[in-house]
């Protein structure tokens, strides 16, 4: 089943300018792995040596931060939408 991934501007150099990708995967982790397979160089930017997402990378599914769900194990429904965004923003 197909999942849509929205790519932030900061990563589009690694996706040849593409702002979206369509991948297969039943969980967030599987969908991201499929994305890394499509675009070389993406994985090193958003995951650390331990394979986990870096601490300033936020991934949302349907607008909800995956850290409030099951992280990379969170299931993704067919037609679901993942958004990758930098965690750098905010007030005081």
């Amino acid at each position, binding site marked *: 089943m197909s999942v849509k991934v*929205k790519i932030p*501007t900061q990563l589009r150099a690694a996706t040849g300018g593409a702002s979206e990708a369509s991948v297969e995967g039943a969980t967030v982790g599987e969908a991201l792995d499929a994305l890394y397979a499509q675009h070389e160089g993406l994985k090193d930017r958003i995951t650390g040596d331990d394979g986990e997402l*870096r601490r*300033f990378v936020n991934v949302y599914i349907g607008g909800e931060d995956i850290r409030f769900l099951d992280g990379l194990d969170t299931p993704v429904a067919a037609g679901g939408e993942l958004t990758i965004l*930098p*965690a750098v923003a905010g007030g*005081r």
Partner: protein
Amino acid sequence: MSGTSLKCRECAATYELGARYVCENCFGPLEVSYDHSHLAGDVDGLRRRIQAGPQSIWRYSDFLPVETPPGVGATNLSRAGLPAGATPLIKADRLAERLGLGEVWVKNDAHNPTHSFKDRVVAVASQRALELGFDTLACASTGNLANAVAAQAAALGLPSYVFIPSDLEEQKILGTGVYGTNLVKVRGNYDDVNRLCTELSGERESWAFVNINMRSYYAEGSKTIAYEIAEQLGWETPDRIVSPIASGSLFTKIAKGFGEWLELGLITGAVPTMNGAQATGCAPVANAFAAGTDVCRPVKPNTIAKSLAIGNPADGPYAVELARRTGGAVDAVTDDEIRAGIRLLAETTGIFTETAGGVTTATLAKLAERGDIGHDERVVLVITGDGLKTLDAVKGTFESYEINPSFEDFEATVEQGVHA
């Protein structure tokens, strides 16, 4: 300018001083690096130049990332923007006495043009935005920033877009819309607003989101609180700072400001012990501190301190590290303690602060009660905003008398009530 580059706080990659805020290698936040070596030769001269500078943050422009700061004579709002900073530092003896402390000062940043410290950061961000060729100001805000961006845009004659959570306090909504901004109420919490704006900032290239794509510059404005405190104390550091934490930006930049001046020999002392203050209903940084980790697990905010209600704090890990390194702590206080904190500050100093200031004052009281603060310490409490912005928080916290317009009723109801 003294700024030399943008440097990633995670992997140390450097970039030129452009409109970039995230490291392309690792997504880490970018921070402005400086070379102040040309200032080190004549520290006395530098002190005199600062003292002769404008009564605003621009007296510290050697330490801010802008090319053409408004000068001493800059009184034209359409060029200089609103004059932020130069707020009072007040010795609060009755507050100290009430808490059994030796020396407490209040840095009252409610004295800024839109009544919060946000005018400082917006002044720097908007100046840099103009230099970089942006034509519109924007922000994601918990309220105070909304006021500051809308007002600054009006002063500079720029269009603006302000995004806020739809459940914000009415005072903050009214105090934003009045400036003629495009006010967008987002159905969600601050973290939802932030996510939307992070996405938008990638799609609207001529917009300067002050706390997103301008964040590296914006955050530097908070250092001016440290500079002012040091200058107002006679070019010395205080022993301890108690400051609110939402994203952790203000907290870490205050320490950076003291550090820069200590390194130059402009002031004496040491980086103060840094105490951070959060509300129990949104305490990801205090939780991480208590758990002995620097991983700030995001939370869903539920507190009356809406201006601190950031569940996913961008500078949280750095705030935890700073508190530990300086022998400080990050504490959290309940909504009832927040209300009591607002009352305590108001009753002992005549300063009415918003809920964030209640958090900070309540945290000071907690530290005092815990015996963390030595009697010989000089403590500065950073009050970041005005109580008129969160009036609901003090509803029902005091009694009043209602009488007929007669002397007898006054005596019977009020005076006997007082002496009863």
